[in-house]
């Protein structure tokens, strides 16, 4: 990298616009990052409200609050909103804010396209959420949209599929931008193996996104033509096969779950060294572990469909391949623990969330390994055990990491310290209730309660009640998170540039709040600021 990434901001056409125009026309990575994060928070609340509808209905056996059709719409929409509206945009928002600052770049590589990637999202979600108000209702066949069921719904199918296309376009452009930024805009001296792990995990995530979002687009396009243009991709009468959809969907779907977790690994790998005041243990092995997980994620998809009737050889292959993922994942968990080993640790809110992540994500990983065992999977598949599994990895995994990241970088964004006391309360409140919410679901699943069902046998009542109470407590607790952010934006103790005593890396060398343009002249990356390592080899 030469000095070619010195920035020239084309500001001479006038003042920086203010008001709404500032946000609609922005090309600035920090503003666009903020837009992503705010959008994500809004979707988190919308999706959360849907989850509370689900938990309210499941508080007791029998049908009481909503009709089954609407219940199914809630499970479907909850998942779509949370995955594509809350978690993915949150990570992209964090990447927007932090990647250029972490690698010493003036902005994202393709600033106009950056604006486009974001602004597609509110429109796509308007389209998706609008289906709730249509006479035939929102999609109700589950977020996976399996045919033939999904093809038998009402008018919503076309809207969902086209909304998914829009989201896909947004994600692909976002990912292209992140890759171009990382590969092309690094400051002199910021070699690949000096990049912070958050940057590394995002580089690999962006690759996954570009590889699999188009596959999802292909899958749903075939749904569309099967429904409206008489094709028979998923229709056995015409020589097609509904299972074909599942293969294509999960070829996207499994890498997708890693898209939802790899940036979280990156975040935790930033936070733990800071609050342990030690360099990250096994930096290089972290990079290789991330890459291995990404590679393996392409060859395990059929563990979502063991019960469709696959040849034995295929089942064995997918079982063992899935279990192999536990190895690089274990490397990561080992490294995080080893980083803390004999560190002088403190437990500010970001660290608490990161620690919560390490423990609780591991529980989700372990239930994943249980699910990967073919004969056991025949029992657990499509039960609440699966629901418990993916909520441990997604809520206490991805969402906890996002919250850790917000607390960690909020002082850098706003220039103020957040309210530490409230932050700790938020952490403990969330951690306690999220376990009350999801842990009993393991037992429900093992006892045979199916997922996506509005009613259940009375023997499941107690655990469902506990789970619902946990759900409401956890859910309303998140309003505290919103309040803490609001309060921090409005004011608070002034943050220093470094913010955290043990923080390393370029983002902590710029003032807090970070000025609109950082690193217009690229910094020279010295060994010890580059990554959480004291000495580079």
């Amino acid at each position: 990298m030469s000095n070619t990434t010195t920035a020239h901001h084309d500001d001479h056409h006038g003042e920086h616009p203010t008001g709404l125009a500032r946000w609609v026309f922005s090309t600035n990575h920090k503003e666009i990052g903020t837009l992503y994060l705010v959008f994500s928070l809004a979707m988190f609340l919308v999706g959360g409200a849907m989850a509370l509808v689900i938990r309210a209905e499941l508080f007791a056996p029998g049908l009481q609050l909503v009709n089954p059709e609407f219940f199914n719409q809630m499970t479907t929409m909850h998942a779509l909103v949370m995955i594509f509206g809350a978690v993915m945009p949150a990570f992209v928002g964090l990447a927007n804010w932090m990647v250029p600052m972490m690698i010493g770049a003036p902005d994202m590589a393709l600033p106009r396209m950056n604006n486009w990637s974001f602004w597609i999202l509110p429109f796509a979600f308007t389209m998706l959420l609008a289906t709730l108000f249509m006479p035939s209702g929102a999609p109700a066949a589950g977020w996976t949209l399996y045919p033939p069921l999904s093809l038998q719904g009402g008018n919503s199918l076309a809207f969902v599929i086209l909304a998914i296309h829009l989201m896909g376009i947004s994600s692909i452009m976002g990912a292209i931008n992140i890759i171009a930024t990382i590969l092309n805009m690094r400051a002199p001296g910021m070699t690949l193996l000096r990049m912070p792990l958050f940057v590394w995990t995002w580089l690999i995530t962006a690759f996954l996104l570009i590889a699999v979002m188009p596959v999802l687009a292909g899958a749903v396009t075939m749904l569309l033509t099967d429904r409206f243009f008489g094709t028979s991709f998923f229709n056995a009468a015409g020589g097609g096969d509904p299972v074909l959809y599942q293969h294509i969907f999960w070829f996207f779907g499994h890498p997708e779950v890693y898209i939802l977790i790899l940036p979280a690994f990156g975040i935790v790998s930033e936070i733990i060294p800071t609050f342990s005041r030690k360099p990250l243990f096994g930096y290089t092995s972290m990079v290789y572990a991330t890459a291995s997980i990404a590679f393996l994620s392409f060859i395990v998809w059929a563990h979502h469909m063991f019960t469709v009737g696959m040849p034995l050889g295929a089942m064995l292959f997918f079982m063992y391949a899935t279990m192999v993922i536990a190895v690089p994942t274990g490397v990561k968990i080992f490294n995080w623990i080893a980083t803390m080993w004999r560190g002088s640790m403190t437990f500010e809110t970001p660290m608490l969330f990161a620690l919560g992540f390490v423990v609780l994500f591991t529980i989700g990983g372990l239930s994943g390994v249980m699910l990967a065992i073919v004969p056991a999977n025949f029992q657990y598949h499509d039960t609440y055990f699966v629901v418990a599994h993916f909520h441990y990895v997604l809520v206490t995994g991805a969402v906890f990491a996002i919250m850790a990241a917000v607390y960690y970088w909020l002082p850098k964004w706003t220039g103020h310290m957040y309210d530490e006391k409230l932050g700790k309360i938020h952490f403990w409140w969330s951690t306690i209730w999220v376990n009350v919410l999801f842990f009993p679901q393991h037992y429900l699943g093992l006892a045979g309660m199916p997922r996506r069902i509005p009613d259940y046998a009375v023997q499941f009542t107690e655990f469902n009640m506990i789970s619902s109470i946990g759900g409401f407590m956890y859910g309303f607790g998140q309003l505290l998170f919103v309040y803490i952010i609001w309060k921090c934006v409005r004011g608070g103790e002034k943050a220093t540039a470094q913010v955290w005593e043990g923080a390393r890396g370029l983002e902590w060398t710029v003032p807090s709040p970070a000025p609109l343009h950082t690193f217009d002249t690229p910094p020279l990356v010295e060994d010890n600021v580059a990554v959480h390592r004291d000495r580079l080899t």
Partner: protein
Amino acid sequence: MGQSSYFVPATAKWPIVGTVGMFIMMIGAANWLNAGPTGPWLFAIGGAIVIAMVFGWFGDVIRESRANLYNSAVDASFRQGMIWFIFSEVMFFAAFFGALFYARILAVPWLGGEGTGAMTHELLWPGFEAAWPTHGPAELGGDFQTIPGFGLPLINTLILLTSGVTLTIAHWALKKEQRGPLVFWMFVTILLACLFLSIQSYEYVHAYRDLGLTLGSGIYGSTFFMLTGFHGVHVVIGTIMLIVIAIRCMMGHFSKKNHFGWEAAAWYWHFVDVVWLGLFIFVYVV
């Protein structure tokens, strides 16, 4: 590439135009599919907005590029962008090729009774014999014939391959800054592209009218038209790119060193070409 600094535009007005256009288009498409009366209109309006956006946006970029606002780092970012965009397109086609392979190697043989435990054959269609091409045990879409690979498709293959060569000759001319030959070979390439599209359209009409082969002809018709159809759409896009680039060549836009716009279109064209080779082999021949 005079500038030494990275160009970051102050604002961007085209993305939101594009977003609104796409939004109207998608709403229109969904309404249209659900037989809503406003669908086609909304779709057309949205489409027009998107087209205006493309012209406006690229126009800005071309102006900035010609005003020498881009340095080599910006150029490298554009290259990255184009490479990964093409990669995403490859994966999009991969989904449809995957469907084709799955149907031919697994689904259809299982329907014919192969493998253990695939009960569809025994219980639903015991008389069905696996074969390719097929429109499935229910014989959806009625009798049909296929298009033999070594007729027009072979000619089309040769046309596309030739167009790749003529495009490369044009590139040589560009690198020698010989505008006459450059424009000439661009035109030959565009002519070949149009020829390909004409033959492809003729083939579609022939299939629908004479051969009974339609989108509804079971899994064969589905995979055939989906793969060739999406490829055709990409050829149309590629052809439009080539036409725009040819006009820019005539206007003297590209220099020996600075012609990434040209190269991007060429990369896209070669990608379309390679996809066709896959299609020719797996859809028409094998």
